[in-house]
């Protein structure tokens, strides 16, 4: 780079604040999940979320960013930017020509943090803290980074094939959802669970509200500039969240007799998940449809399929993120239009069947690769240090046994 590209203050302001919003999503997720478990296990969730912020930010700076976005081959990057060497304030034209390279790096870092954090939802109330640390670092390295490279990096093969994944339908959502399911299967069910575990629904709603807020940065920030595409993504994100909240609550109303707050906030998240890959490629009306559809889909997954098969995907990372992410990838292939984003493609509705196939292929590839790699990692960790706490510790609660502390002490 002889002559660095000029930096746009507006775009830089936008991407930085969006990176901040995505950072906030991990604490938000901590509360979204934390309220759903018994109070003896809330700190263990908060702790794992902050552990992701801690270790994954460091890993990202040390090698993750370079492996994910460095120029390697179609599957994985290289170490050119290890220790953020060369990731300075000059823009990197391959990714974001109007903002400092390091702004792009940190925006991406927050995606790498929250993805394994979502997996926590499948493992709560029984996973050993040390095992989670090892698992999440391995998973980052062997699953997140490769998929991220394939879909988003300049030389990724899925990107080369033309897949549309605006903010992480494959990279984030399918990935964490499938990983959650697979690792929950390997980890096994919680002991003697006969009742719902929620101890503080307002915390769930607080986390969910902050997730919505943060997701606006997640999705609209993925435009990497404060332009029309960002504005469109911002609009579609809100509309999909709204539509899915309404459709989930409506299905509940029809089936169980009343709409619930827990269902509504679950619908919000499902809608945000589904619009993630699509938000920068589809029009607002399509976003509403995408949201409307995902509500019942995810509701059905968590209330019926999970019950039927009896797996303990405890807080439904799979039912919400896996299912929603897959639908979002497909929906992008249906509704995408270059009218919204000239650097995208048209989808099925505009006659481009090919795009739908690409979307399906990318989503399926992610499912298969992620499932296989996650299974190997989880089994390896299980062998090595054991995934689960002892039955006594599980009964006693993870907060006190894994962290020597309690969330609430209420005598004075």
């Amino acid at each position: 780079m002889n002559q660095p590209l000029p930096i746009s203050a507006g775009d830089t302001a936008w991407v930085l604040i969006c990176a901040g919003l995505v950072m906030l999503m991990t604490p938000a997720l901590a509360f979204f999940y934390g309220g759903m478990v018994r109070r003896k296990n809330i700190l263990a969730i908060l702790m794992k979320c902050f552990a992701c912020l801690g270790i994954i930010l460091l890993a990202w700076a040390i090698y993750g960013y370079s492996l994910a976005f460095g120029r390697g081959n179609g599957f994985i990057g290289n170490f050119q930017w290890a220790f953020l060497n060369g990731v300075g304030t000059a823009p990197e034209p391959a990714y974001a020509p109007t903002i400092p390279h390091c702004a792009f790096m940190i925006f991406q870092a927050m995606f790498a943090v929250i993805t394994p954090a979502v997996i926590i939802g499948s493992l709560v109330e029984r996973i050993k803290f040390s095992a989670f640390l090892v698992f999440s670092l391995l998973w980052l390295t062997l699953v997140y980074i490769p998929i991220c490279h394939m879909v988003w990096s300049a030389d990724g093969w899925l990107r080369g094939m033309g897949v549309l994944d605006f903010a992480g339908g494959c990279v984030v959502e399918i990935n964490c959802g499938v990983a959650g399911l697979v690792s929950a299967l390997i980890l096994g069910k919680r002991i003697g669970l006969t009742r719902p575990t929620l101890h503080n629904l307002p915390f769930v709603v607080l986390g969910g509200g902050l997730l919505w807020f943060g997701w606006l940065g997640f999705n609209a920030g993925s435009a990497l500039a404060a332009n029309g595409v960002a504005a469109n993504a911002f609009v579609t994100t809100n509309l999909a969240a709204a539509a899915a909240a309404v459709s989930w609550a409506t299905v509940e109303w029809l089936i169980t007799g009343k709409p619930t707050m827990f269902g509504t906030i679950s619908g919000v998240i499902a809608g945000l998940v589904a619009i993630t890959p699509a938000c920068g490629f589809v029009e607002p009306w399509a976003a509403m449809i995408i949201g409307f559809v995902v509500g019942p889909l995810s509701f059905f997954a968590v209330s019926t399929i999970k019950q039927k098969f009896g797996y303990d995907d405890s807080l439904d990372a799979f039912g919400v993120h896996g299912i929603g992410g897959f639908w979002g990838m497909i929906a992008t292939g249906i509704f995408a239009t270059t009218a919204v984003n000239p650097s995208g493609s048209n989808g099925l509705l505009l006659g481009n069947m090919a795009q739908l196939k690409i979307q399906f292929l990318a989503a399926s590839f992610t499912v298969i690769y992620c499932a296989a790699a996650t299974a190997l990692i989880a089994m390896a960790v299980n062998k090595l240090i054991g995934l689960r706490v002892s039955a006594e510790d599980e009964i006693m609660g993870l907060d006190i046994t894994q962290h020597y502390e309690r969330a609430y002490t209420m005598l004075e």
Partner: protein
Amino acid sequence: MRLITAIIQPHRLEEVKKELYAADVNLITVSEALGHGRQFGIDEFYRGVKETGNLLRKIRIDIAVNEAFEERTVAAIIKGARTGKIGDGKIFVTDLKRCIRIRTGEEGSRAIG
């Protein structure tokens, strides 16, 4: 002396307190409880999964009284707590052997009030 323990509906607490004060029973201890009785709880649903709501919020009131006050205390509680609907609760009376006021060390009837 008697120890009177009442399990009542939470929304009747104010009324019961009023009736107790009216009956000159001023010293009480209140705590939270969950009850399972004849009253039919409402089913709850969490992500579509049904949970039979079988523990309902109740209030527990403990009152130590002299025998002479037993009847009026029970009557006051009933007056304040009764709605006539299932779930109104119960009153349990046990024998109180000793009652001591911590502040003064007084015992018995004098310590109760």
